[in-house]
């Protein structure tokens, strides 16, 4: 059995660890609140842009805009949204696994796909595997602004338009609730699933022309989709870090109570042994 002092020091170190995980849990909880607010602030923008895109798409049924038409797929781009740091449970590995599986299933060579990485964990993984990472953003703040990812979003959309690849998928953790999130695959480009609203939308006058508007609107729409996914991902990052830290704290409490039990038992055994020795010694003298 371990000595009393060993057990004691183990208890102390576990206590210290649990203090840290407890603090991290509370920090993540408050970050989660902020992230949810950000996601909420973004909703009016997204719903508005969707409404207008839908209205235009329904008005001009066959515009033939390159971003709306599917073409034969020679090369695919994957935009992977992960966190910069670990200690968030299965948050990063879930996304990375989903992407890696999809790639293994769809492609036979590295020439057939490219990666955009938002977040250090995803970037490091794909760089290590030797994938072609053509765009990356790391070190994003916890409350990202649109300007932070504008460049990579712009690049991702621009390279689709100029034909570098023919599809753009993004992978991120969709925030379901504070205790659960699910990996989501979303096809960003080409924009094939625009919800065409009927009835409520007014017929618009386009200035100067529907085509010119789509030229501005569609890239903006696609970039907003990416930003929306990032906000969603951030919220679930904080949520999963919070629950990971919560279970770490709980486990530490369990461990401490077990160790305390062992410690007390060992202490009692030592005392009993001492008494036995004293009694034995006294008996020998008689």
């Amino acid at each position, binding site marked *: 059995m371990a000595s009393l002092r060993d057990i004691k020091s183990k208890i102390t170190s576990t206590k210290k660890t649990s203090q840290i995980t407890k603090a991290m849990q509370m920090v993540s909880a408050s970050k989660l609140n902020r992230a949810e607010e950000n996601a909420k602030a973004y909703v009016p923008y*997204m719903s508005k842009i969707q409404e207008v895109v839908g209205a235009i798409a329904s008005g001009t049924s066959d515009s033939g805009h390159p971003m709306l038409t599917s073409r034969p797929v020679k090369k695919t781009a994957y935009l992977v949204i992960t966190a910069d740091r670990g200690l968030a449970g299965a948050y990063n590995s879930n996304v990375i696994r989903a992407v890696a599986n999809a790639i293994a299933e769809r492609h036979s060579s590295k020439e057939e796909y490219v990666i955009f990485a938002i977040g250090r964990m995803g970037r490091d993984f794909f760089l290590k595997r030797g994938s072609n990472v053509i765009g990356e953003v790391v070190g994003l703040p916890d409350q990202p602004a649109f300007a932070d990812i504008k460049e990579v979003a712009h690049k991702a959309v621009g390279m689709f338009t100029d034909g570098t690849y023919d599809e753009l998928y993004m992978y991120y953790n969709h925030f379901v609730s504070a205790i659960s999130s699910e990996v989501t695959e979303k096809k960003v480009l080409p924009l094939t699933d625009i919800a065409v609203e009927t009835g409520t939308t007014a017929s618009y006058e386009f200035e100067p022309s529907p085509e010119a508007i789509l030229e501005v609107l569609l890239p903006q729409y696609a970039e907003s989709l990416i930003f929306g996914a990032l906000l969603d991902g951030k919220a679930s990052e904080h949520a999963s870090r919070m629950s990971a830290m919560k279970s770490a704290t709980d486990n530490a409490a369990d461990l401490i109570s077990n160790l305390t039990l062992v410690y007390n038992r060992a202490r009692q055994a030592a005392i009993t042994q001492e008494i036995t020795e004293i009694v034995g010694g006294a008996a020998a003298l008689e």
Partner: protein
Amino acid sequence: MKTLTVNIVTPDGPVYDSEVDMIIAKTASGEIGILPGHIPMVAPLVAGAIKLKKEAKTEYVAVSSGFVEVRPEKVSILATSAEVASSIDLARAKEAMKRAEERLQGKSDSVDFNRAELALKRAMNRINVHEGNI
């Protein structure tokens, strides 16, 4: 007098929401004035100032690229970024302008050149809007 509801939203959240008498915006095909009862319209915006006239007062909002959606009693402006004149950080805008100018002087690689030029336009726009000389 009839008024218009104006909504300016960006991906980072709503920026402006109020009733005004008239809106003047810079679109790709020129400046337009919007009064209550305008026909439904959509137009792309270029970086510039949105003027919002409300009784005797005029407010300015600097916007970068985006578009404006007009309905008879409601106008929505969707921009990638927008700032009300009073909240513009002048020091930062001047800093950005200086950086963009330096980059423009430096090289004439087409992509970077375009980007620097756009950045310069945005910065100048913000400074102008802040100082109110439009």
